[in-house]
């Protein structure tokens, strides 16, 4: 076998092996999206109830709560970045990190200091490589988020928020995550968690629907005290679940195009290999014919 032909055959073989892997990953991701989507759907009643209650209290009580009032001067802002633990998901992590960078630049141009909270190994790696500081990180379970982690993150950011700015506290909290829109589209999103902005974020009440005039037990401010951390947690948990679903969708898409690419490569190299084989045969024939000619003319 000629050298050229052997090279092509090797390339075909390697593309085939790669394709096997990417195809498997594609199928795995596809089956996981469903589960992740179901988890997003299952967590909806909770976040809906919490959001509704928070808007109820915030709208119908005149309490001035730290978590809802806009501070006069914002010195420091926190950004919570939701990335994934593993790569091979196309632009998934790049998108969310770019979005976070843009937000940070914007905040810094307004004279605010930015502190980061990172979720997922990829963002930790990104910060580590650039030797940049971050406040805290959570890794290892972005594929299958548990509520305890959301609670931990929520506690950490709310504690930081309640600290006065002079002691290193933050005045603003943003989250950046990939929102799962459909199997094909996931878009990075920035949401300001604190101070509360759009309370009725999940489902705006219908035109003629009025939020009920609640009685509170105990006091309205105590209820708000208890509710807001719960609200923050549920938003964070929701972001984690959305991010997990988006990650699987992004992986599936990336792996699908990788498999398609491998197919294309295999096609191209098979053609080239055929060409090489054919020209090898042609050459051999012409050599034989030439040799036979030379022999027969030598006999005469």
């Amino acid at each position, binding site marked *: 076998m000629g050298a050229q032909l052997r090279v092509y055959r090797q390339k075909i073989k390697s593309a085939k092996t790669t394709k096997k892997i990417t195809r498997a990953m594609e199928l795995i991701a596809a089956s996981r999206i469903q589960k992740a989507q179901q988890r997003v759907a*299952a967590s909806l009643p909770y976040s809906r109830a919490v959001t509704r209650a928070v808007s*109820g209290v915030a709208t119908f009580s005149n309490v001035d709560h730290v978590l809802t009032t806009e501070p006069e001067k914002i010195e420091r802002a926190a950004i919570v970045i939701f990335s994934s633990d593993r790569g091979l998901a196309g632009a998934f992590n790049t998108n969310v990190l770019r979005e976070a960078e843009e937000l940070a630049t914007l905040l810094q141009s307004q004279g605010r200091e930015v502190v980061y909270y990172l979720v997922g190994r990829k963002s930790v790696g990104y910060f580590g490589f650039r030797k940049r500081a971050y406040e805290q990180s959570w890794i290892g379970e972005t594929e299958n988020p548990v*509520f305890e982690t959301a609670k931990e993150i929520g506690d950490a950011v709310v504690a930081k928020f309640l600290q006065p700015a002079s002691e290193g506290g933050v005045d603003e909290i943003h989250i950046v995550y990939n929102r799962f829109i459909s199997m094909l589209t996931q878009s990075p999103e920035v949401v300001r968690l604190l101070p509360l902005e759009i309370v009725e974020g999940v489902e705006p009440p219908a035109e003629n629907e009025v939020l009920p*005039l*609640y009685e*509170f037990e105990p006091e309205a401010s*105590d209820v708000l005290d*208890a509710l807001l951390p719960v609200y923050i947690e549920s938003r964070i948990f929701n972001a984690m679940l959305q991010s997990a679903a988006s990650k699987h969708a992004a992986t599936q898409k990336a792996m699908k195009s990788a498999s398609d690419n491998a197919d294309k490569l295999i096609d191209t190299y098979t053609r080239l290999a055929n060409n090489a084989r054919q020209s090898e045969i042609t050459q051999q024939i012409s050599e034989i014919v030439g040799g036979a000619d030379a022999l027969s003319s030598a006999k005469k």
Partner: protein
Amino acid sequence: MAELKVSVVSADHEVWSGAAKQIIARTTEGEIGILPGHEPILAILSAGEVRVTTMDGNVITATASDGFLSVEHNVVTVVSRQAELV
């Protein structure tokens, strides 16, 4: 008779939902019983049980702590990070 529409939800799923005659829960102020037609209320739950009497008289008990209870127009929502049926 009017009925209450009750749903008990925890952070990652809906634990129970259905119609009920009465619901009893323990708030930070003490036990509270809710019948159809109750005024809108938002109460913080303390550790304890939530007892739901369904339309056919069965009692469903759920543990719910660390959450809240809201009532509005005969819709009762018990929200807790960890709610479980007993």
